[in-house]
């Protein structure tokens, strides 16, 4: 019996002593655009492992952004390992409040690593910085763009190469693009902006175009009831109710792309993430343009950043840094952009031959990038889920005519203030 015990002890000792310290990185990621992209991520993981023996990467596909956040936090709470994750850029405050993330600044030691932190588009960094430290590294980011059906434009007597540049033009051109059948029913709308799924995101564009952001940098104040913001919602409502170029009620996010490619609407506002899908299914020439301006151009950014979790060992942190740096090299950023339709997250990516050629053949791909200088951070505050839902509900109630934009937004602002008071 004693012998057996000794043998077991020795075996345990051998197993415990790290022979080849293999660091394992587990990360949750969402796929927000359709396609066999899990294979692409898995491919990246394998390529990284080849170049970095001693680090194993375990990507876990978690669904959409909400799922990824829920799953990653649940895993951390349950004590399961996760070192990094791609999560919604706006989950920053929630993650801070749960005290689960740490800034990348603390791990970036060398001058080269610190320079890497500055290599991304500034507008993409906005959602990831809190009190001067970088918590989120951009990975799959998007903005809203306007897609337009060139054939429909020609049919309506409009110049098929010119998209509307401002709100007035959009309303007028859309009115010309509405097509009705003999009975007077609309068979094609002028423009459609989705109001389910992520209504607040679309609304941020309207608000920004009218000159205002919806929250402050510290995540404890919202701006829902500013007169310009109310006017922005009024314009959105008017498109459906007054100008009749958009259906009344809410427009479904999930089916909008189909409605555009089926010719049921001549223009649509949607994420650049849809670009590849529209390209493959549209049977007509289409254009992609920056969103029209009111007082200025504007669009929120969207998408996911890499976050680093606190419950990590120094080896894991170094490995994570290596992995994330590897995932965001110009070549890889270009590759990911072409595969998904997301914007490449750093300027150097657009200088790579691959992306240069792609953009030459498909100029629609760089519109989103050009829009970056007008871009603003996505809506994020403490209690972000609730604060966002207040806005979503307000938008939907205004678009369905249940409340006026002023009523809806003022009520939402009052509720948001109650929630955020504790953080000021």
């Amino acid at each position, binding site marked *: 019996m004693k012998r057996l015990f000794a043998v077991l002890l020795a075996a345990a000792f051998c197993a415990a002593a790290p022979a080849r310290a293999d660091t394992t990185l587990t990360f*949750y990621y969402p*796929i*927000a*655009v*359709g*396609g*066999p992209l*899990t*294979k692409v991520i898995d491919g990246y993981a394998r390529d990284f492992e080849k170049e970095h023996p001693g680090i194993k990467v375990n990507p*876990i*596909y*978690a*669904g*959409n*952004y909400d*799922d990824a956040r829920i*799953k990653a936090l*649940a*895993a951390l*709470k*349950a*004590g*399961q390992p996760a070192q990094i994750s791609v999560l919604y850029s706006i989950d920053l405050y929630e993650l801070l409040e749960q005290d689960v993330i740490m800034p990348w600044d603390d791990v970036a030691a060398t001058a080269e690593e610190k320079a890497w932190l500055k290599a991304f588009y500034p507008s993409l960094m906005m959602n990831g910085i809190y009190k001067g430290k970088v918590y989120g590294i951009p990975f799959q980011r998007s903005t809203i763009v306007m897609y337009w059906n060139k054939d429909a434009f020609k049919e309506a007597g409009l110049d098929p190469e010119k998209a509307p540049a401002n709100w007035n033009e959009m309303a007028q051109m859309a009115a010309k693009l509405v097509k009705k059948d003999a009975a007077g029913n609309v068979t094609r709308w002028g423009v459609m902006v989705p109001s389910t*799924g992520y209504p607040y995101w679309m609304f941020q564009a309207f608000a920004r175009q009218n000159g205002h952001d919806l929250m402050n940098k510290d995540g404890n104040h919202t701006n829902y009831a500013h007169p310009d913001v109310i006017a922005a919602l009024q314009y959105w409502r008017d498109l459906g109710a007054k100008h009749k170029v958009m259906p009344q009620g809410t427009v479904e*996010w*999930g*089916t*909008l*792309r*189909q409605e555009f490619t*089926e010719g049921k609407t001549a223009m649509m506002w949607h*994420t650049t*993430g*849809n670009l590849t*899908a529209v390209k493959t*299914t549209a*049977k007509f020439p289409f254009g992609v343009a920056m969103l029209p301006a009111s007082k200025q151009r504007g669009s929120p950014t969207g998408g996911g950043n890499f976050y680093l979790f606190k419950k990590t060992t120094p080896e894991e942190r170094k490995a994570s840094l290596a992995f994330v740096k590897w995932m965001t090299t110009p070549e890889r950023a270009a590759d990911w952009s072409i595969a998904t339709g997301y914007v490449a997250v750093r300027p150097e990516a657009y200088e790579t031959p691959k992306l240069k050629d792609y953009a030459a053949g498909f100029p629609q791909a760089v519109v989103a990038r050009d829009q970056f200088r007008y871009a603003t951070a996505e809506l994020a505050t403490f209690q972000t889920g609730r604060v966002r839902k207040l806005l979503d509900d307000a938008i939907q109630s205004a678009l369905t005519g249940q409340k006026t934009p002023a009523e809806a937004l003022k009520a939402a602002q009052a509720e948001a203030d109650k929630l955020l008071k504790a953080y000021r």
Partner: protein
Amino acid sequence: MSAAGRRTPTLETAAAWLLALLWLSPLLYAFWAAFHPAEYATRLQLLAPLSVDNFARAWTYAPFPRHFVNTVMLVTMVLAAQLVLCTLAGYAFARFDFAGRDIAFGLVLVQLLIMPEVLIVENYRIMSRLGLVDTILGIGLPYMASAFGIFLLRQTFKTVPRELEDAARVEGCNFIGVLWRVYVPLARPTYLAYGLVSVSYHWNNFLWPLIVTNSVHTRPLTVGLAIFGAPESGVDWGVISAGTLMAVSPLLVAFLLFQRQFMQSFMQAGIK
């Protein structure tokens, strides 16, 4: 045992068939969208070309084999545990007169009304503490003691004639032996009925598995389908239909082959 010699009037027949067609329409649409290319998903033209491209794509988008294995493991584990636990409990209620029995039975029946789905918040917390989050056992555990099963088996066991039990006792069986040799064999129809109901229910269960599972290793088909069908870029009906058909086909085929048994099971369960 239908009314002798009376045919349903024509108008009613037409109405019944129309209703049947209506009832099948979602499934019919799924077949349509799955077997035609993406652009025909919304255009219902009869002569559209067929394709199995959607199935190929759906297969790569989501790990269906893994989800299938998870689901099979889940329903098997749950059913096995239910059969054992409910048999023991049903036997206790049917044949043992013990202190507090009626109160205990009442407490058991509470679960008929307050199912694990209703208590998601607290049950998730418990699973977290037990370390069972993201495990298949974690999905199945709250369901293993089924009030419905206990109720059914109690009713069934009560109808077993005492003489059979006495005969077995005369041969020297203790109470477990009696259970195994007399009661269980006689309750076979009930077991079959209950089994089909349970498998159906857990194959299609969604909310609780959604909450408890985090990763592909444990997700059953329903959760896999939901995640697979909800990307930011919008709905692709061809691929979703293909995925849906792949996920529901085992149960659907089983149902089509064993229709009578399925319906008899549910009927039996209902009568009791």
